[in-house]
């Protein structure tokens, strides 16, 4: 594990420190100015905030300048991301495009696709969602049934996607679908298409979360025409394309920081002189958080393609998929440890409408606790993947 990483030498260079200060200052002033009431559990959608972040050059910041990027390092992006998460900044509008759509287009997209979407994403004006899961395809993603049929100049897509976060606000989404019948090898015949959500035949319906919030959707695709120039990468290579960049996606700070603001508020509750039990709990949370961050940071730095790269996509020669799965597995459980520590040390009743930040955060996080170990690869699927990697060399 982590054989390529020298943890002892891992530290933020002065440029990243400067960026960290800049982002902290930005968040302090911006969030106050927005008059925004933060919630935890799901990143919130705030178009104005996303535009303000874009003005600072922090969306698509690792991408080439000719597509609106800043050609900054993965480490810089890591710093921006973790600062946003630390204060529950409302990043949902640009989240998926910044993390996934952009890098996918840089690696597999055509020049025209990059020109059409990337600068608009980087300006904070164009939002993407992800169309992966289906009613009968959750962990078993290769079983997707949404299909595209060849027609002149493009494809006709029919099917249903679910758990599509923020599809009701996004402009487009990536759809993983079957472009040729299942021939026995289920990983073949899948493709990725860009479907713009205002296209005829697209219907978005809310799926309400158990606390009544609306961020999930189901998206129905009824014979939707997708022109040839919206095909991402190669027809039939969709599986390879969606699984090739999981390392960064799985190991980012969002895998262990979605309940972090509750930790901060817990510390405020505990005050300056905690009893032994509280001190021990706080110390243990800090230790786990720190070790997770060191691993996440190591992956971001190791996958950085370096300043000479034009591509802005992760270094292909390093395989950290297993390490990334470990970070997600442990990170998502750590998020729950924060909730339990807060719950057991403070003994307050969770109050969803409380004015008090701690009480509200506690309510938010308890309700959202089941989600993080399900989305982006369930704990059980990840552990099977990790074990296969461990046992493989023995065969």
């Amino acid at each position, binding site marked *: 594990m982590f054989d390529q990483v020298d943890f002892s*030498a891992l530290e933020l260079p002065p440029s990243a420190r400067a960026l*960290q200060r800049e982002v902290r200052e930005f968040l302090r002033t911006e969030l106050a100015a927005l008059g925004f009431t933060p919630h935890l559990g799901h990143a919130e959608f705030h178009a104005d905030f996303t535009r303000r972040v874009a003005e600072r050059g922090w969306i698509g910041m690792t991408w080439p300048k000719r597509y609106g990027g800043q050609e900054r390092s993965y480490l810089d992006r890591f710093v921006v991301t973790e600062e946003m998460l630390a204060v529950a900044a409302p990043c949902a509008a640009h989240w998926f495009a910044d993390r996934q759509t952009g890098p996918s287009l840089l690696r597999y997209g055509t020049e025209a696709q990059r020109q059409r979407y990337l600068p608009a994403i980087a300006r904070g004006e164009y939002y993407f969602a992800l169309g992966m899961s289906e009613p009968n395809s959750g962990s078993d993603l290769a079983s997707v049934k949404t299909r595209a049929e060849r027609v002149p100049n493009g494809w006709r897509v029919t099917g249903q996607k679910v758990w599509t976060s923020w599809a009701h606000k996004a402009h487009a989404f990536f759809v993983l679908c079957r472009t040729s019948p299942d021939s026995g090898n289920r990983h073949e015949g899948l493709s990725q298409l860009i479907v713009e959500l205002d296209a005829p035949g697209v219907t978005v319906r809310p799926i309400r979360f158990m606390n009544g919030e609306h961020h999930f959707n189901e998206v129905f695709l009824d014979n939707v025409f997708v022109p040839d120039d919206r095909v991402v990468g190669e027809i039939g290579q969709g599986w390879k394309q969606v699984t090739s960049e999981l390392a960064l996606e799985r190991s980012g700070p969002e895998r262990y920081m979605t309940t972090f603001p509750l930790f901060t508020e817990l*510390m405020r509750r505990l005050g300056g002189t905690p009893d032994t039990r509280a001190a021990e709990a706080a110390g243990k949370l800090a*230790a786990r958080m720190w070790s997770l961050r060191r691993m996440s940071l190591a992956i971001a730095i190791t996958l950085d393609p370096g300043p000479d790269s034009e591509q802005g996509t992760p270094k292909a020669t390093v395989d950290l998929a297993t*390490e990334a799965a470990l970070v997600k597995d442990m990170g998502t459980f750590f998020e729950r440890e924060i909730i339990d520590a807060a719950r057991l040390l403070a003994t307050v009743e969770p109050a969803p409408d409380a004015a008090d930040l701690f009480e509200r955060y506690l309510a938010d996080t308890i309700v959202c606790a089941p989600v993080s170990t399900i989305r982006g690869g369930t704990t059980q699927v990840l*552990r*099977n993947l990790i*074990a296969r990697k461990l046992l493989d060399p*023995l065969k």
Partner: protein
Amino acid sequence: MNDVSDIRTMLVDSATRLFADHVNAKMLDAAKHDGWSSALWKIVEDAQLPLVSIAEDAGGAGGSLSDFAAVLRIAGRYTAPIPLAETALAGWLLASSRLAIPAGPLTVAPVHGEEISARKVGGHWKLSGSLQRVPFARIAGHIVVLAAGPAGDLVACVDAAQCEITPERNLASEPRDGVVLADAAVAAEFVAPAAGGVNPTTLRERGALLRSVAMAGALERALELAVGYAGERSQFGRKIGQFQAIQQELARFAGEVAAAVASALSAAGAVERAQNATFAVACAKIRTAQAAHEGALIAHQVHGAIGVTDEYALHHATLRLWAWREEFGNEAAWAIELGRAMCAAGADRLWPTLTAD
């Protein structure tokens, strides 16, 4: 940068070869009775491994603390029965006070917060104190102590022959001996004021760091054994590693090992750079002790009954893990200290502290 990592790579490769070639079942079994392996010590000392991270002009072999941590991780992985960490700690104390580093195995004291008093009588110092569970004391030629002198802390290199030593051991049968200094005489040339930043607190901190690093290595060993066993042991007509229940446990184990490695080596870097060092060491000792707890038990569960026998290799790693997690402060002790410091600093310092590497 390249030079540093090239040297590290060479060091790691040669240490791996050395331990792989020389540590074996017979040696580990004999060490349970003898307390160590003098043969292995000789080879390790000839390779100057205990002197890595001590400046050459102070009698060391050069290199950084992270270089030494890389070596100690491997020693932990092979459960090398020698006082490598202890000798390095002693070397650090001596070198920081510009005292000569004697040859042979060394150890340090106090490791449980006891006070050693020092008074000067003529040309000699006389040291007194009663010390619990000093690692490898009966093996060490010299015990390097931090003593309270009339004008502040002193570092003294005490000939072990001057001490009354009562053999005891830890779970892995490593010597953890009682030591009584009763006006033990030390010539003035072997005593010097402790340097800035060298005191019982930082000695404990370094000790905790080195135990964390060694635990990371021992955890790697336990994981290797568990994975290997899962791949060869058959039950119900198939390899037990093919059962998802076993796979899930191995995956959880791998996470614990990764977290231990990441935190121990990160803390070595923090101490080396003297940056947020106390915080990093506390985190590392807490996290590696937790990993030792989870990991050792998973390793045994995967092995079934064979793992708990004295003829199977697993116990060399797990007994050490269970011993080392307590030494220089266990996870509760460090967490309470850390939690108090964090609360005293206030909630708004939490995030800056976690990110101050």
